């Protein structure tokens, strides 16, 4: 029982990180119809910027995270501006553009911070909580809490605010949205930079849990992407559920299948996606010009 509970705790905190990554994918897809392949590398930049602020500048963790989100939000604006001539015209080229930007970000990170990477100390020093025989690191609770807040904030924004609803309309019908008076370019820019901010948040949070290096985005990105697909690409609650499922799946299969855990995790994922190709919450209708 203790092993089960502890694995649950580990899987949930991991799941929270994947959920944040998946949220970023979901937002950009839902509002721009674009799968952003630079997402995982933006996460890496967020992790580096946040850890630089905490380790070199000695800023409090929360401030460092917010600063990282703002800076990567700006990077998101720049990327969107450069991709804008392709929006609504050549979708595939836009996709390739994001892959290119990912590579550029990795090279930039290696140039600025070196290839070796760095370990980031946990920002929360309190001893772990003990609940029902399981030991819950306090920092894991912080990560889960932040992920929940982010999900709620994003949902409220998209469903209840004028700009959020307009953002969704742009993905559904580019021309009709323009005709209705929506500034599509600006809407996309904001969507992309919020997506980047979410990636930075995930990166800043995951840094102390793992190890920050220019290639860290790789496997976290793939798991986050799988989470988004599982939940139904473009669905906000789906991204969160998908993240939790992938996180739990990873931890439990590690517990039972040891060296074969990766294989089992992705086999289960493949089966789930075959049974329900549009994901748990179905794919939101997005038209791509």
């Amino acid at each position, binding site marked *: 029982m203790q092993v089960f509970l502890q694995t649950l705790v580990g899987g949930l905190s991991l799941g929270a990180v994947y959920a944040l990554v998946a949220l970023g994918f979901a937002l950009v897809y839902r509002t721009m119809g674009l799968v952003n392949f630079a997402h995982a590398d933006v996460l890496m930049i967020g992790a580096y910027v946040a850890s630089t602020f905490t380790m070199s500048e000695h800023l409090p963790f929360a401030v460092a995270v917010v600063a990282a989100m703002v800076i990567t939000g700006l990077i998101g604006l720049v990327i969107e501006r450069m991709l804008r001539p392709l929006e609504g015209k050549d979708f595939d080229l836009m996709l390739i553009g994001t892959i290119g930007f990912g590579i550029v970000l990795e090279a930039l990170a290696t140039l600025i911070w070196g290839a070796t990477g760095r370990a980031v100390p946990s920002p929360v020093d309190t001893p772990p909580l003990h609940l029902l025989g399981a030991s819950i690191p306090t920092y894991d609770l912080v990560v889960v809490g932040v992920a929940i807040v982010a999900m709620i904030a994003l949902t409220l924004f998209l469903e209840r605010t004028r700009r959020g*609803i307009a953002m*969704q309309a742009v993905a*559904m019908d580019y021309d*009709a*949205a*323009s005709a*209705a008076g929506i500034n599509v370019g600006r809407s996309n820019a904001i969507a992309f930079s919020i997506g980047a901010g979410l990636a930075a948040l995930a990166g800043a949070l995951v840094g102390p849990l793992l190890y920050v290096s220019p290639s860290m985005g790789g496997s976290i990105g793939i798991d986050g992407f799988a989470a988004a697909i599982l939940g139904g690409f473009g669905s906000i609650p789906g991204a969160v559920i998908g993240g939790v499922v992938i996180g739990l799946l990873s931890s439990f299969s590690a517990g039972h299948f040891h060296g074969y855990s990766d294989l089992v995790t992705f086999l289960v994922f493949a089966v789930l996606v075959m049974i329900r190709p549009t994901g748990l919450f179905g794919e939101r*209708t997005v038209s791509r010009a």
Partner: protein
Amino acid sequence: MSTTLSQPSSRVSAALQVEDLCVRYGGVQAVRSVSFTVEPGEAVGIIGANGAGKTSTLRALMGLVPRTASTLSFGESDLRRTPARNMVRHGIGYVPEGRHVFSGLSVEKNLMLGAYSKGWGRSQKLELDGIYEQFPVLGEMRQRPAGALSGGQQQMLAIGRALMSKPDLILLDEPSMGLSPKLVDDTLAILLNLCGAGLSLLLVEQNAELAFGATSRCLVVESGEVVTEGSTKELRADPQVRRSYLGI
């Protein structure tokens, strides 16, 4: 259907003036030097066969495709360099070909987006109530996703959406497309209602009967050019028009 439609804004005296409108897509001249006017409160139709360039004309007016014109103005505003998203601010509403409602969003959100440029305040809420009064079916389905509506209902939604910004001129692109004859009649009634409320109308239609019924004056377009124009009475009597477009 009731006639409670709020009055358009103070630019009632605005006329749409178009001179020498040209549209070129990738080597093809879709619209060649089209000129016309729509006087305040007038309903003008553009008819022609499939591919004649009618839809391109409307899309060009809205700025959804690149175009050139020596004159393109509405009232005192010169619209030649105005992008599509600012047309609403000048009092021009647009109902696209094929409706193009935001299918994943609710009916109510679709309507509210029509008023996006004006912000979402009290007067927009009042406008919304007005739309629900005029189109009760939309009121009944207000939280349903727009994609779940039938063709005719989406038609009403698209028109309602355009009305939410309180336009002075509405451009409609083939509203009868894909609708049954009964629904086409309903559409005619809606259009007459709009005119009755003082809106100017520019209607592009393949269905000449509908166009003649809803408008007082029409242009006949072939291969991107205006070949005939006149009052609906004159055009109804024209033997060539009767042969080509009324099937008589």
